[in-house]
């Protein structure tokens, strides 16, 4: 029984490490800040959640040690990592970082141009 749960935990850990590798390749290869941010926030969040779940299962099965800090860490990372990604992306857009030159749609720019009072509020 213990070996089965260790196998499950090892599978979670390998999947999490692989997802973090995928996120690094996305950050190296994608063309602009927004696509890189897309790769970084989603993939590494899921990867770290899987890896911490594997850690939790390992310590629970191997030592009978119920570590609530890992559960809190999973919950906290799930809440905050997308928010941090959103904030960086917003800061990049507001400081006029260019989109990739082959991207075709910028809805935020159109909506801001149609309502100029919102931009010049400062």
């Amino acid at each position, binding site marked *: 029984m213990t070996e089965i749960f260790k196998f499950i935990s090892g599978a979670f*850990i390998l999947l*999490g490490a692989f997802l*973090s590798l995928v996120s690094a390749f996305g950050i*190296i290869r994608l063309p602009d800040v927004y696509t890189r941010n897309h790769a970084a926030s989603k993939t590494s969040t899921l990867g770290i959640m899987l890896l911490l779940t594997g850690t939790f299962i390992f310590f629970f099965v191997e030592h009978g040690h119920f570590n609530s800090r890992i559960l809190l860490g999973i919950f906290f*990372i799930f809440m905050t*990592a997308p928010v941090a*990604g959103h904030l*960086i992306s917003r800061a990049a857009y507001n400081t006029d970082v260019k989109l990739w030159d082959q991207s075709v749609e910028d809805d935020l720019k159109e909506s801001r141009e149609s309502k100029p009072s919102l931009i010049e509020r400062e």
Partner: protein
Amino acid sequence: MFEIVLQISLLCVSISMLGLLYRLIKGPTVPDRVVALDAMGINLIAIMALTSMLLDTTAYLEGILLLGILSFIGTVAFSKFIEKGEVIENDRDL
């Protein structure tokens, strides 16, 4: 067997750390570097969990929550600094 899995995962996370370091050095704009730093903080949490499993101790697991909180606060402060030019603004300072 389980130890080999842990070592392979540690290798994967270290390679991804090197890739993020490349983006941190080369990144053409400041938000690129902040994205790379944020992902590096998350990878550091992964390395901490893997190391505590390799050493078979639960003493390092408190650091997971701590690093998560610190990485989030750092990213929020950096993005506010990029957007507004200051981190803590004083509205009464007219």
